[in-house]
Structures are given as C-alpha cells and as structure tokens.
C-alpha cells in the first residue's frame, strides 16, 4: 500500500472538489434553470452544506490538510447526513415516486444529498487512510492546474447559486420556504417570505410521532361516563357477574368469545395467550409469545376467533399473530416464536396491519366480522392524532379492506362544540349481527357502531365498569371483561 504525498493529495482533492461542485451543486442550479425546480428551505441547507464541504476542500488545497479542516468536513458530513435523513423521512415511506419535487435518475434531491454526504465522508476517510504524515503549517500553496480550475469553477457555481437564492428566497431577512414556487426570472412571480418564522410551529423532537403509549393513555383515562363527549347517555348496568377462574399468568388485556363453541381467548400481560373452555375455568392451551422475534409485536391488546380453530391476537402497535391449536405442532420450530408453550399450539403467521387514516395511532382492540371475513381494529386517539378510526382488514391477505371514521347517528348529541367521539379510547370490540360493539376505557362507555351505515347508532354509559379490557357477545348478553378477570354480564341492546 503506497502512501499518499501531500502534493498527490492536493491533486486528487482538486478533482474531488470539481466533481462535487460540477455535479450536485451545479446540477441543482441546472434543475432550476431547465425545469423551474426551486429548493425548499431544507433543500437549501443541504445544498449549502455540499458547497461548504467543497469549500473546505479549497482550504486544504490552499493551506494543506490541517486538523481543523478535517474536523470541519467530518462535522459537515455528519450534519449533512442528518439533514438529508430528516428531510427524506418526510417522504421515504410514500408510494412509488411520490417524493417532493423533481427526481434525478429515480431518486429525489434529498436522497442524493444523503448519498453525497456519505461519499464525502468516505472520500475523506480514504484520503486520510493513505496520507503520509504531513509537516506543520507552512506558507499557502499557490493553486495550479486542476486546483486553479477548482477555485474558478467553485466561484462561478456558488455565484449562480447566490443568484438563484436571491430570486427564490430574497435578500435578508427573507428565507427559504417549505413549498417554494417554480423558478422564474419574472419578478412578478418571486415569492420572498418569512413564513417559516411566522407560521406557528411548536418546537418538537418527534413532531407527529409524539404519541403516548396506548397503555399510558388507558391508565390516564377518565372513567366517569358523565364527563364523556356524548350528552345524556342512558346507563347500561350489569345484571350479573362471572369471572375467569382459569389460572392466567398475568393481568387480562383482551378477551374474545367463540360464538360456535363458547370457548374464550384471553391475552394477558407478558404476551400470554390462553385458550379457555366455555366455562372459563380451564386452560385448554397456553403460549407466551416472543414479542421481539422478527416482527416487533407491541404489548398484546386484543384477541379474536377467526372461524374454525384459527386464533388472532394483536399488539398495541398493530402487529398481529395467528395461532392454531395443533397437537402435532413442531415445538422445535416454534421455539423461536414462543417463550412458553404447552406444546399444542402452532403459530401460523405474524405481520403488521397497515392503516391509512389510523397511521401514527395505537390500537387496543381486535374484532372479527364473520360475515365479511374481516378483522377490525379501532384506533386509540392521542393529542397529536385526534381520530377514532375503524379499520377493516381482509382475512385473505390481512391487508386493509376499508376504513372509516364513524359519524353520529340520530339521537346522539355532543356535550359541547369542542367535543368529539375521538375522545373515546376503545379497549375492547366484538361484532355480532352487523353491529360493532366497542367499549371505551375513557368515560366507561359502550358504542354501538352499525357496520353498514358506518354510524354510531347508540351509546351507553357503563357506570361502575372501570377500564374494561374486552367485550364479547353471548346471545342476548354482552360480556364486559375487566383486567382482574371479572366479567360483567349486561343485557345486549336491541339493534
């Protein structure tokens, strides 16, 4: 491996600067001139960063590879990657080609900015790796050849950027915008603004991703029905109590009942899944999932029977697991999926529900509509995403089939103009005869949602039933489960 002399370093660096300036920094101006593309405020910062990296290269050409220059270019490379990732994060998860503004060779400019900063760091690393130790400070080097050309090209390209910046963003104190209009040389179309400063934007680390955990929201929920968003609700009172007497290995977090066999499916703290007999006195099968294997399954929050023997459970993060009682289960292959098993259960599959309207919201319930062969979740609202969304997923491919925000039916009125059904925090759901029964831990309320009209047709206060974790239907009865395993029996409201 031959060492790199300082003279050779300067020669290579001159061409690196030329490529960097002639490529992305000049190319960005060309995009504006040829296609009218204007950078947003974030794009401008990334373009400036690339120009600054080239400028540090010129410092090295002039004064040699001093440590402060190398430190500066590493900082610029790291910050440039952060900027590109922060910017690209707005668009990376969108569908094919749905980025922001123009693309080059199939990638949008913020993606190229990330690559350019990675390459800049890699080039610096390589040059340092091969660089022979250099002498201390000496007189500035007179640029010649490629270095001279690099200086000239840099000045011309930066001047062109300055002109474009003047047209697109204006003189100080005006600055770049989030949604700039296309570049025009006609001053009539120039937009000079300070909207980025004047638009009220709270300083936030995670923005719309700042969502309290579903369990925290449940724990903080106000259980008093009188404080709820719907006014004057009739009360639905328990007429009897039952309880799950089968031994569970943690607090109950979700419950479902199989209408065909009367069996129960319970999910508990610590990823426990228990199939119980119809009297809830005996555990037929038990597993404890490994929630961290492959797909991150959030704390279990809902369960459903999918017909036949297939069982479904869902985590608060909308990750799901399908299970099947199977006396011939291959327990060696199930080891990675289960932390505990009675040996008679197989995991069929696990995956993630993808929603549209309920994105960035947790769920705390799962139901199955046998008529439509669809699984149903209801979103947990948060201060950032104040929506109650019913999402339906086809059993055939577990993909989103439809989604809606239920409207209020006749006879239901809000307690105030600022109130909303999105204040309900649904922790249990079940479907019977085309009706979706959803129990809310906030304001201890039962919502009856007609799946045909997508409307809340009735709602009932549930006095004394604090933080229900599940609901099931048994003929003319509704069964509301609490975390300690008690089950309140209520009359099922007539449709």
């Amino acid at each position, binding site marked *: 491996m031959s060492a790199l002399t300082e003279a050779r370093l300067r020669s290579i660096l001159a061409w690196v600067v030329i490529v960097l300036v002639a490529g992305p920094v000049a190319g960005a101006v060309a995009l504006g001139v040829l296609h009218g593309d204007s950078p*947003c*405020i*974030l794009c*401008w*910062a*990334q373009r*400036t960063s690339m*120009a*600054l990296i080239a*400028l*540090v290269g*010129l*410092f090295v050409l*002039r*004064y040699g590879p001093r440590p*402060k220059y190398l430190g*500066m270019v590493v*900082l*610029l490379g790291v*910050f440039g990657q*952060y*900027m590109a*990732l*922060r*910017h690209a*994060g*707005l668009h*990376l*998860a969108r569908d094919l080609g749905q980025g922001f503004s123009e693309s080059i060779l199939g990638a949008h400019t913020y993606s190229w900015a990330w690559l350019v900063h990675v390459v800049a760091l890699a080039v610096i690393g390589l040059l340092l790796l091969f660089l022979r130790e250099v002498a201390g400070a000496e007189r*500035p080097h007179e*640029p010649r050849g490629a270095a001279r050309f690099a*200086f000239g090209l*840099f*000045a011309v390209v*930066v*001047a062109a*950027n*300055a002109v474009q*910046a*003047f047209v*697109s*963003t204006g*003189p*100080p*104190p*005006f*600055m*770049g915008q*989030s949604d700039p209009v296309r570049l025009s040389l006609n001053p009539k179309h120039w937009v000079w603004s300070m909207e*980025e*400063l004047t638009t009220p*934007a*709270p*300083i*936030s*680390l*995670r*923005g*719309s*991703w700042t969502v309290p955990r579903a369990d925290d929201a449940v724990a903080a929920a106000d259980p008093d029905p009188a404080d709820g968003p719907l006014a004057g609700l009739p009360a639905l009172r328990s007429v009897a109590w039952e309880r799950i007497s089968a031994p569970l290995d943690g607090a109950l977090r979700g419950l479902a009942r199989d209408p065909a066999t009367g069996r129960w499916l319970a999910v508990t703290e610590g990823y426990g899944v228990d199939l119980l007999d119809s009297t809830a006195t005996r555990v037929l099968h038990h597993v404890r999932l490994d929630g961290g294997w492959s797909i991150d399954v959030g704390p279990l929050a809902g369960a459903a029977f999918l017909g036949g023997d297939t069982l479904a459970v869902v985590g608060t993060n909308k990750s799901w697991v399908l299970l099947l009682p199977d006396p011939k289960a291959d327990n060696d292959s199930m080891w990675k999926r289960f932390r505990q098993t009675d040996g008679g259960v197989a995991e069929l599959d696990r995956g993630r529900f993808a929603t549209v309207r309920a994105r960035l919201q947790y769920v705390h319930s799962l139901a199955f509509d046998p008529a439509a062969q669809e699984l149903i979740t209801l979103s947990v609202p948060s201060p950032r995403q104040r929506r109650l969304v019913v999402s339906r997923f086809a059993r055939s491919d577990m993909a989103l089939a439809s989604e809606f925000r239920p409207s209020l039916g006749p006879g239901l009125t809000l307690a105030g103009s600022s109130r909303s059904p999105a204040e309900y925090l649904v922790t249990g759901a079940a479907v019977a005869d085309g009706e979706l029964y959803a129990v809310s831990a906030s304001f201890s309320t039962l919502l009856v949602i007609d799946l045909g009209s997508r409307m809340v047709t009735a709602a009932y206060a549930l006095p004394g039933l604090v933080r229900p974790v599940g609901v099931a239907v048994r003929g003319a009865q509704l069964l509301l489960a609490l975390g300690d395993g008690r089950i309140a029996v209520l009359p099922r409201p007539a449709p």
Partner: protein
Amino acid sequence: MEFLNFVLILVIVWLLWRRPERERLAFGLLVASCLLMALLFYVGARGSIVPGVNL
C-alpha cells in the same frame, strides 16, 4: 438568508484566492456560514427535529 450565506461563501473563496494570509478570518467566516446553514435548517425542521421515521 440563503442568499446571504452564498454571498458569505463567495467572500470566503475570494479571501482564499486573493488574501491567503487572512486564513483565520476566512475560517471564522466558514464557521459562521456553517452555523447560519444549521440555523436555517433548524427553522425549517423545528416542528420535528428527529427524522419522521420509525426509530
């Protein structure tokens, strides 16, 4: 402000080319330009400082 920053960069490259003995000033202006760039990015990103992706 982006225009100001590019003018600043032009001043720096002029110093490097025509007044190489003013290295300290040029480097100081380089630091100022970096800070201005970071400030402008922060203004545009302050609503969500961390990238909006699944961490």
